[in-house]
């Protein structure tokens, strides 16, 4: 299909720069966007077209992107095999069903006028691999993927001291990190992508619950099989766990989740908590309706944004978190555009454009309220859960506090591998230390969305007059005020000391699209100490 022509897209007011980071996009094949043919829909009488009460994320999308009944009747009945095997066709269904003028992607034009003999269609039927378009050769940074995912959110359940929110969707392509190796996990032979977010029900804080989390998945009344899902980061969901999981026949599935004790050091209101495992069970329906909804809910970005620096809105973060899924989207923070005027084009240029030097010339504080850490002007598109770009997220739109909101003296927010290392020092005798020490806290986070980055190895070295004063590893710590961070007490600190923070191991969390090329670097960041 032709690449959407942004120059002629009347809805797009932004100029598109030729030095766009992701200028080299894969030409999405016609297969990706071809609607299924009538032959595809002829054999399944079980398709349901009535509306559903079930809580699908896309329920909160703008009304004009809802597939109409006509869409659903026109497009393929989705047998299980079709959904699992025919992802390409399904993606096309979702795409064709998208009538949001702002985000319209051109209807596919079958080159030969007969999509039924497109070779890709047959492949998709047989390969059991959903093929959604991907950004080819993305930048080594957090970048915009081609689409917002859709998923069914299960009502949160109690698991001991934890609250677990299950999420289920179509099998995903994601990436696992083993040391320095990044390996794409193809959704071969699997039926769903099963995820969970673990929260503290008291504060709503999302917990770094990678420890011992186990899911036993069973068709109702049958013996289950255990899974230890991957700790994962995604732009839309932040930190969670998930995996592609094979199921059996359609029906009700039970997922017994065992959340292990949180092994990070716990401070403040979290001290003494999360010491024991907890278990809870949620259920979901695996049926045509589920498959239809999760695929129909896929929401494409206009192609000009694919691969640009930026992130999709996180719809799981925030203290209200799960309560917001039924609403109209997040309350926008007070310090950024509210999303309703995103198309006026008056206050920003297209992304990838005007590159500014760091606004205040301080390499420790790249980015400000008008520029991101690349020095580019901030921008945004879309609204609600489907907002995206480099805009400054509000306080409740990220898992971690904004760097400026961290307690103590903020030494800087250096960037390594596109991870921002917000680094702060708290004065002697704070509640974080036993004696009269200072407290060094490094809070690595994803850019834009401020999601936590667990499973890193960090060290620090404090230098004075060219000599090393102290050095040690930083211990991962969970605090109600600082959030998840890596920290160490400092016995001695003087104005002007040089602090070196080193990433020994980048986060080994798995990644959804848009993060697989970021947060992979090791290296040093040097900061000058200002006493708190």
């Amino acid at each position, binding site marked *: 299909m032709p690449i959407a022509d942004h120059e002629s897209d009347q809805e797009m007011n932004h100029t598109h720069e030729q030095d766009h980071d992701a200028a080299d996009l894969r030409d999405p094949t016609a297969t990706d966007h071809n609607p299924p043919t009538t032959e595809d829909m002829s054999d399944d009488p079980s398709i349901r077209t009535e509306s559903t009460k079930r809580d699908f994320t896309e329920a909160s999308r703008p009304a004009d992107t809802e597939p109409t009944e006509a869409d659903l009747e026109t497009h393929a009945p989705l047998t299980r095999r079709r959904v699992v095997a025919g992802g390409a066709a399904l993606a096309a269904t979702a795409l064709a069903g998208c009538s949001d003028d702002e985000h319209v992607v051109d209807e596919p034009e079958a080159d030969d006028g007969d999509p039924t003999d497109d070779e890709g269609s047959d492949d998709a039927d047989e390969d059991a691999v959903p093929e959604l378009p991907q950004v080819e050769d993305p930048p080594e940074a957090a970048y915009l993927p081609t689409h917002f995912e859709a998923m069914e959110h299960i009502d949160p359940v109690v698991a001991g001291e934890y609250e677990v929110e299950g999420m289920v969707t179509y099998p995903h392509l994601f990436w696992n990190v*083993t*040391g320095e190796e990044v390996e794409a996990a193809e959704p071969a032979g699997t039926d769903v992508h099963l995820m969970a977010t673990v929260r503290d029900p008291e504060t709503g804080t999302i917990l770094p619950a990678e420890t011992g989390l186990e899911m036993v998945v069973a068709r109702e009344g049958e013996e289950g099989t255990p899974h230890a899902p991957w700790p994962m980061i995604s732009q839309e969901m932040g930190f969670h766990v998930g995996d592609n999981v094979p199921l059996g026949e359609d029906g009700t599935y039970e997922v017994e989740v065992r959340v292990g004790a949180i092994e990070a050091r716990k401070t403040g209101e979290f001290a003494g908590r999360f010491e024991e495992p907890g278990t809870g069970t949620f259920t979901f329906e695996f049926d045509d309706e589920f498959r239809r909804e999760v695929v129909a809910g896929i929401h494409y970005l206009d192609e000009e944004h694919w691969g640009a620096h930026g992130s999709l809105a996180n719809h799981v973060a925030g203290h209200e978190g799960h309560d917001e899924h039924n609403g109209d989207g997040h309350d926008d923070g007070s310090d950024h555009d509210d999303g309703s005027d995103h198309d006026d084009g008056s206050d920003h240029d297209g992304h990838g454009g005007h590159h500014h030097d760091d606004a205040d010339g301080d390499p420790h504080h790249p980015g400000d309220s008008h520029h991101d850490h690349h020095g580019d002007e901030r921008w945004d598109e879309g609204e609600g859960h489907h907002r995206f770009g480099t805009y400054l997220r509000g306080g409740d739109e990220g898992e971690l506090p904004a760097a400026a909101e961290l307690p103590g003296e903020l030494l800087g927010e250096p960037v390594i591998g596109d991870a921002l290392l917000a680094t702060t020092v708290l004065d002697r005798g704070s509640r974080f230390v036993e004696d009269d020490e200072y407290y060094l806290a490094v809070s690595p986070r994803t850019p834009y969305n401020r999601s936590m980055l667990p499973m890193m190895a960090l060290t620090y070295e404090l230098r004075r007059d060219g000599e090393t004063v102290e050095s040690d590893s930083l211990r991962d710590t969970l605090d109600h005020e600082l959030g998840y961070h890596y920290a160490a007490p400092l016995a001695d600190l003087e104005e002007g000391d040089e602090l070196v923070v080193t990433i020994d191991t980048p986060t080994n969390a798995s990644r959804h699209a848009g993060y697989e090329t970021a947060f992979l670097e090791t290296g040093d960041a040097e900061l000058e100490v200002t006493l708190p």
Partner: protein
Amino acid sequence: MTLPDPADVPRREFVKAAVALGGTVGLSACLGVNEGEGSGDDDSVDPTAGDDLDGVPTGDPDSVPDRQHAWNDSLPTDEDGNVKTPVHHVLRLVDLAVDVADPAAREEARETLSAALSDLESAFEWSNEGLLFTVGYSPAYFERFDGSLPDSVDLPEPTALTSLEDPAFDDADILVHLASDFPEALLAAEEALFGEVDAANGVGVADVSDLFEEVDRRTGFLDAGLPREHRDVEGVPEDAPIPEGAPLFMGFANGFAESQATEDRVTIAEGPFAGATTQHLSTLQTQLNAWWDQENHHQRVAKMFSPTHAAEDRVGEWGEELAADPAVADLPDDAVEYARDEGVVGHAQKAARAREDGDPILLRRDFPTTDGDHTGLHFLTLQESIADFVRVREAMTGEDIADDTGVGTRVNNGILQYVFVRRRGNYLVPPREYRSLPTPDPNADR
């Protein structure tokens, strides 16, 4: 479960299914196949008769070693010097049906069981071609007696050993481990010991069926190619590219001679139970979908052995390059520092941290299973004390590594992401002299 049609499956797969099924039905199936009937039809053989089994040698109790766990000298070794554990295994967990705290009842029961076990040694050669077995006793068994086990025996109740697990605990009195390359030998011995049959392999066996109440029966197998043939269960993709040469579902070999403790090392040397060993049995489920669908060979080698093994290609396809040595001795001593550099740490590498002066302290006799139609591992080990097992398990868990590196509690931490501990049990395997219903002080008992 039902037996597969032998016409549709390789014989090896069929007999493994027969072992899993057990009992006289399974025995009939084995015999049927062995006699070339190819249908599981048992018209020509009466499985309850304890008939002579074709090709299975009988034995002599006088030639059986004093230690129950002395199997190695009776097992073949491969070309690299690795001991080949028997192919088929059955674990029978039973409670006692008689009150052995009563001396008179105990004496009678002990003599009967002793005779039956001796009869089994007559019925089967003490080897992989006949039958190898141990009889172990749990802490729950010893609790019924006045007096406690001597200090030289470390046999605590089983406990959870990591924060990742909530196991159930086996509290059956007795664990009998039966092993043979011939499933029909295994099944015949089982029937003689626990069933209604009073003979095995043409030799009479004293009837002890009244002594026991069945608690559980577990089965497994260990041989190249068997995991590949059994990909049709939960816990592994049915098209997983498990190498033909691999005896484990994870696609590698185990039991390397250099990583196995000697039988001497695991033997209790002193005290009234000198010549005994302790036995730990973990019942593990494995979930290998991501292992096979999402990891590549390089990652699997890094996690099973070490990243160094992966980088230097030390392993080969399934471990054939390692010969008799998992080659972990030359890895850096500081696994935490290593893990900070690599971001991943291997299973064998972690376990080797618990070696004593470079020597392993566990003798593994574990084997894969498809019990419950799910992949798993009956992780059976022998060691001088249960504390030795706990030490190795702690090293393998690697909480120190997870705490201080980017390695996760499960992810990139050896194979912990793929293994789920369901049950644990501890047993004392007395020397052969005391293998029949011992009291905590077997000398005084005589």
